[in-house]
């Protein structure tokens, strides 16, 4: 499997897009991964599930605007150069 750096960038963009499209109300709450279900155990260490939910929520918040820009750039470049 020969990777190029371009493949890596593509993978990163696709994965971030995949995380960004997980809608809060329509999907995550339905499967028990909503915002309110994450902050369960206080104490010293939050569990694995809380960390994952935290991660998803932060990625969605932080990467929303940059993803818009990057996706638009990708679309334009792919339209122009195939």
């Amino acid at each position: 499997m020969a990777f190029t750096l371009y493949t890596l960038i593509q993978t990163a963009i696709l994965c971030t897009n995949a995380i960004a499209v997980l809608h809060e109300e329509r999907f995550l709450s339905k499967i028990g991964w909503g915002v309110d279900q994450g902050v369960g155990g206080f104490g010293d260490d939050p569990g694995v599930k809380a960390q994952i939910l935290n991660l998803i929520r932060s990625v969605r918040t932080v990467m929303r605007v940059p993803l818009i820009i990057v996706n638009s750039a990708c679309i334009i470049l792919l339209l122009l150069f195939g």
Partner: protein
Amino acid sequence: MDLPHQGYRATKPRARAAPSAGDSVLFDDTSSAAPGMNSQGFYTPAYNMAGPSNDMQGGTGVNNLFADPMASAAMMYGSSLANQGKDMVNKEINRFMSVNKLKYFFAVDTRYVLKKLMILMFPYTHQDWEVRYHRDTPLTPRQDVNAPDLYIPTMAFITYILLAGMALGIQKRFSPEVLGLCASTALVWIIIEVLVMLLSLYLLTVHSDLSTFDLIAYSGYKYVGMIFTVLCGLMFGSDGYYVALAWSSCALMFFIVRSLKMKILPSISSDSMGMGSNSKHQLRLYITVATAVFQPIIIYWLTSHLVR
């Protein structure tokens, strides 16, 4: 006045006469017999105050050839402009990546490199795997053989790429693009592995002091095993390749488990927190073992096509 060419041996940076305390720990030259020999020293000219004076010395040294004062003025102006650009670049880089932390990983000497290579290939007799500290800061690789460094992984990576080119050339399958492809493949695998490690350490809230550079260092040590495997495969054929693969896989797995065990798994002496964290302990164990098992797979994947 010293000739400027003496100062530009960038192989072993030597400490200046009056360095700051932290820098002297990093860059004392321990491999020469008489440490006090170099009373005036030069860093690699990138990162310090000696840079401008080096440039000035170089400027005035060459300047003697120019009788024209305009040329000398232009030279001074050009060197000051270059210094300004250098400072700006350093400032920008420092925003993303702490250069001092990076310097720690390259503070090695030959003794350390030899011992570390021996440990990587034969870790079974090494007794003490603890990383030693000195008042809360980890010791540099010069003083502690267990400390991770980035010199060996970088050199091993470059050697691996050259060796891959040579192996492909022996089989008459070489072209210059293949080198670039090989390099970027190996780089991408390192990036993937480091990202997965970071993700798993974050998800399990492992409060260790493993920084990103530490993880890059530990995952770069497998290149030493890869080089050894490819060399044996080239010299002794397919049987030699498999024997060397088995040997370096076992050695690397042992090395990784012993090194990461100290950092990831909680020390056994703390009995008070042992109650609710049994599953956590298990997960941490899984991470360590998974990292170790991943190494031979990657070694096989990245080298099998070189040794047919």
